[in-house]
């Protein structure tokens, strides 16, 4: 998956001459935490975050003090060394970037112009979509030997029952000789498929005792 597939293209921006007060209001109104600052040609020149605004605002013990500061332009507080992304970047790279630089938003720039934005929230949302957890489904976990060809064998058992798989995740077991296959399947009645899997010799993780799976 690439960035242009998940980025928001309707970006809330300000220009460098807008005031800090305007920026604060915008954050509040739109429930956002980042405002890219652009020039007349929509070229990205800076970024203002809720933290920058907070740094510029009076302490809660002096709410009425020096309010004139908030009338200064955002150019006085914006960060200009902004890390940006490209529409063709991989989504996985963006996740790594967030982690590495401890940032939570990435303006997407093409030909110097701002064309989109990705935030941590978007990334998390995408992850939820990838796991298939947003569609009605049952989750079945199968513990399998870590060998080639196993996934297709297991998937074939679902196919035989005419059960649609909405997503598959493969993650390592504590024992490196095994993997856990996580299937989200579109059925409310997984009893038949569970017994098929067991009959085929697989270990199905499914509630049998509290958090002790058989």
């Amino acid at each position, binding site marked *: 998956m690439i960035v242009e597939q998940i980025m928001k293209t309707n970006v809330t921006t300000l220009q460098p001459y807008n005031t800090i007060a305007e920026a604060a209001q915008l954050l509040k109104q739109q429930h956002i935490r980042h405002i890219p600052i652009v020039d007349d040609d929509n070229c990205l020149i800076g970024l203002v975050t809720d933290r920058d605004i907070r740094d510029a605002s009076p302490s809660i013990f002096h709410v009425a003090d020096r309010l004139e500061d908030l009338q200064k332009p955002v150019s006085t507080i914006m960060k200009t060394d902004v890390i940006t992304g490209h529409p063709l970047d991989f989504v996985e790279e963006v996740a790594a970037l967030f982690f590495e630089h401890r940032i939570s938003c990435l303006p997407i720039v093409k030909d110097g112009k701002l064309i989109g934005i990705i935030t941590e929230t978007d990334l998390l949302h995408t992850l939820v979509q990838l796991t298939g957890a947003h569609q*009605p*489904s*049952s989750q079945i976990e199968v513990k399998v030997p870590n060998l080639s060809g196993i996934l297709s064998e297991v998937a074939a058992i679902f196919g035989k029952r005419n059960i649609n798989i909405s997503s598959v995740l493969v993650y390592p077991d504590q024992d490196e000789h095994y993997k856990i296959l996580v299937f989200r399947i579109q059925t*409310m009645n997984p009893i038949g498929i569970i017994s098929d899997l067991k009959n085929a010799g697989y270990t199905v993780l499914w*509630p049998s005792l509290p958090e002790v799976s058989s």
Partner: protein
Amino acid sequence: MKQDCVFVYSDDLQMYKFNDTHPFNQLRVTLTYDLLREINALKDEQIVPPRVATDEELELIHDRAYVEAVKAAGKKQLSEDVALNYGLGTEDTPIFPNMHEASALLVGATLTAVDYVLSGKAEHALSLGGGLHHGFRGKASGFCIYNDSAVAIKYMQKRYGLRVLYVDTDAHHGDGVQWAFYDDPNVCTFSIHETGRYLFPGTGNVTERGQGKGYGFSFNIPVDAFTEDESWLDAYTQAFREIADFFKPDIILTQNGADAHYYDPLTHLSVTMKTYREIPKIAHEIAHEYCSGRWVAVGGGGYDIWRVVPRAWALIWLQMTEQSNISGNLPKAWLDKWQPHSPVPLPLEWDDPKGLYPPIPRKAEIAEKNAKAVEKALYPIRSQRQNTKKSL
């Protein structure tokens, strides 16, 4: 003359049948009806036949194209590909002859119950054929084709302008109804269900609270597998009372899936008949406290149709009609009539025996985790109440 309660029933509700091996089997409704008749708890004049929902009524919730697809499917006039796009012809919702007519009758049954209560002809009404809470606007899901409860809620809003509290005690999350009113502040949905960690449909997290104007009007309490009566009832009772007090509904619609029982093959909550005695009791109390008694109850899931559903559903009616002090043996005539058809020995008494299942380890931890879920779910209400107190 005002009747206190009506029971919507006809043998035709059995037409909603996917096939002989499908876990969803409306014979449950007949078994319940028969049990109530056998103990003389259901009088002729209390029984009303269901009407059929009109297309216009179905389209209060469902897309016209979907309704047309269901009609065509029931006449074998829908190609497999197109059907699958509508969730029809899957393992969960296979196509069967006249499925539109059968499904529209279930919706009509629930609307009949609503009409009786809202025209003042009855205080409470029970429609056990309904409760198909997984049905979506344009898609069948989880054994449900049309969503009778969602249609009924929309109908109550449009026709009577009422604020409806929907309470769903099925072991599965009431997703179809929740999403239908997710942005509507005049419908409050409350679902308590087994966590979607494994169980269908996977949604129903505490954080699903509604959106836009409807934010704060969806409540979800996902409880852990192996929750058992005590912890389940704690969560249900607390949440139901506080939500009713917060929302102040005009009418309550309860969905009474009976699939959280230890015997149910699809779920893992391990409750017993004790829970099924309490569910309608609390609903009844709250309906009188907030809604001048207006209470419509529908059925729902329930896949041990022999040992669990008839007793659980009969108890709703017995509660409605204030005959719930029944206990002891089930009527012999009922047992004699149905035991030959049942693949399992029928229970002999209304209540489950002690030690129905072996003790479950980690009980205290599960109860603690569930209590946390309740706390999180009710947090917005509780903090709002605290704020009002402070400002007084």
